[in-house]
């Protein structure tokens, strides 16, 4: 196992230059950034605050999970949802960026040899790095859910990155009709670990995997953030074990830590 996986590298502020920015469907972007100095290696699930260099409007960096992490080169996949991501999507190669990271705790190396990844749309981002980091040491199955029609370029891109990824769509136009949780529940069982990233309602539903004998369910949460390093408490969540900061206590949490004890039959 990669001993560095899941452990937080010290975050640093770095200047970077946009290498490419590619559309992956209607509102999604895949970008690569060349850094001026190396950062600590990041684990799948860790993130960077990314913003245009020297610009005060929009002000805050957007927390994006790195999909590919090298010493001086990072790649990200994101959806355009507001002013910050629109601005990032409008930049052309050569544009100067500022990045803070790697932030937070990523996914720890899996204990067993079988891993199931469950993603809702852009929730696939942290898993792209995981699949390549784990290589052939772990039997990985990835399950993706999308709304349906219109998401073809995105799903094709994901299929290219993760061959054999199982597709699910709400309208049945891409892969199976249905949501990725139902699909993943047909696959889980004792000895298989489950990682989830996507809408919170989906992540909550993943707790049903415990009923199927799954012993470990990890989820990556998303929140609006300020500092990204545990200072401002903008991303605090209430959990059964008290207040947690998504940026440094997470974004990857044990399912039970966030949602409490699962209901068992």
């Amino acid at each position, binding site marked *: 196992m990669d001993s560095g996986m899941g452990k937080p590298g010290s975050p640093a502020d770095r200047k970077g230059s946009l290498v490419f920015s590619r559309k992956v469907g209607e509102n999604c972007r895949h970008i690569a950034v060349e850094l001026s100095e190396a950062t600590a290696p990041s684990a799948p699930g860790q993130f960077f605050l990314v913003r245009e260099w020297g610009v005060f409007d929009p002000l805050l960096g957007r927390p994006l999970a790195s999909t590919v992490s090298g010493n001086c080169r990072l790649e990200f996949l994101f959806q355009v949802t507001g002013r910050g991501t629109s601005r990032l999507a409008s930049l052309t190669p050569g544009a100067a960026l*500022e990045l803070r990271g790697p932030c937070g705790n990523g996914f720890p190396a899996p204990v067993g040899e079988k891993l199931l990844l469950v993603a809702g749309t852009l929730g696939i981002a942290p898993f792209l790095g995981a699949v390549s980091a784990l290589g052939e040491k772990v039997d990985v199955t990835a399950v993706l859910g999308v709304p349906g029609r219109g998401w073809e370029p995105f799903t094709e891109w994901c299929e290219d990155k993760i061959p054999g990824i199982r597709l699910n769509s709400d309208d049945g136009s891409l892969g199976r009709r249905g949501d990725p949780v139902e699909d993943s529940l047909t696959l889980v069982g004792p000895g298989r670990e489950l990682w989830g990233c996507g809408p919170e309602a989906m992540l909550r539903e993943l707790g049903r995997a415990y009923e199927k004998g799954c012993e470990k369910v990890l989820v990556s949460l998303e929140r609006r953030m300020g500092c990204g390093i545990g200072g401002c408490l903008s991303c605090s969540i209430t959990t059964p074990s008290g207040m947690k900061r998504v940026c440094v206590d997470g974004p990857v949490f044990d399912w039970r830590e966030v949602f409490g004890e699962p209901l068992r039959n």
Partner: protein
Amino acid sequence: MSPFGTSLRTEVGGVDLDTPVIVASGVWPMDPALWPEGSLDGVGAVCSKGLTLKPRDGNPGCRIVETYSGVLNSIGLQNSGVDHFVAQELSAFSFAGRPIIVNIAFETLDDLVETVEVLKGSALKISALELNVSCPNVTRGGMTWGIHPESLESAVTAARRAWNGILWVKLSPQAPSVGEFAELSQGCGAEAVVVGNTWLGMAIDNERERPFFENVFAGLSGPAVFPLALRAVWEAAGAVEIPVIGCGGISRPQDALSMILAGASAVEVGTALFVDSRLPASICRELERHLREKGLSSVGDLVGRARR
């Protein structure tokens, strides 16, 4: 050791600082292990999060919304309480090797005095107490302590009686007259005033047709408020003899210099650290550059120079 020269050393309201750049309350972790590399360079002192007598979970719901060149926040003073701070957090915080300024918030004068009593029992050094008067006074229907003269006077007087160390008062920009409230704080025995805090604002989620924040109003900070804060510093510095510490919207090294030229003896940086952890070091370089250019030897020579 500060990598910067002795020209930036200064004494502000009874606290010796290697540089006049202070990390404001509420923006930075109290565990230096979480600080990005290089972010301590140029930092003269650090403020704790706003501490209360009892632990607080803070506000539910959305806590941060970005605005044009700014940020609205409604954290609600989430903190582990002053006992936990003294027993656990202060030792880690002290590892920063910088003077520690402890920011305290309170709902009643009894809370304030009890909080101070706990801090007095600390074995580790607290360089100054920073009294946050932007919190609600529950005995006056939740009105902010710092926007009513009698309220402010009672709070500063109580803090002054309870605390025999250095006392700074962090004024509310919602006060009707920053100059008068700074003068009032001085009269009640404060060693310095910090001018100021976040500006009350709000944001509406048009899709949900509801305010974004559960508390409706939230505090605005970031570059958007810098000209407002600069004006407030100018007014306060014209009204008092004690030092004024400028705080509000400083986002570029030049902003800090402007604050000092307006009359601030030191500056606090907050929101800008969200985007540039090396701002304190950049501010120090800018101050040194300006001193050289003007043939001056000490940052103290710059204080209020725009008022001549």
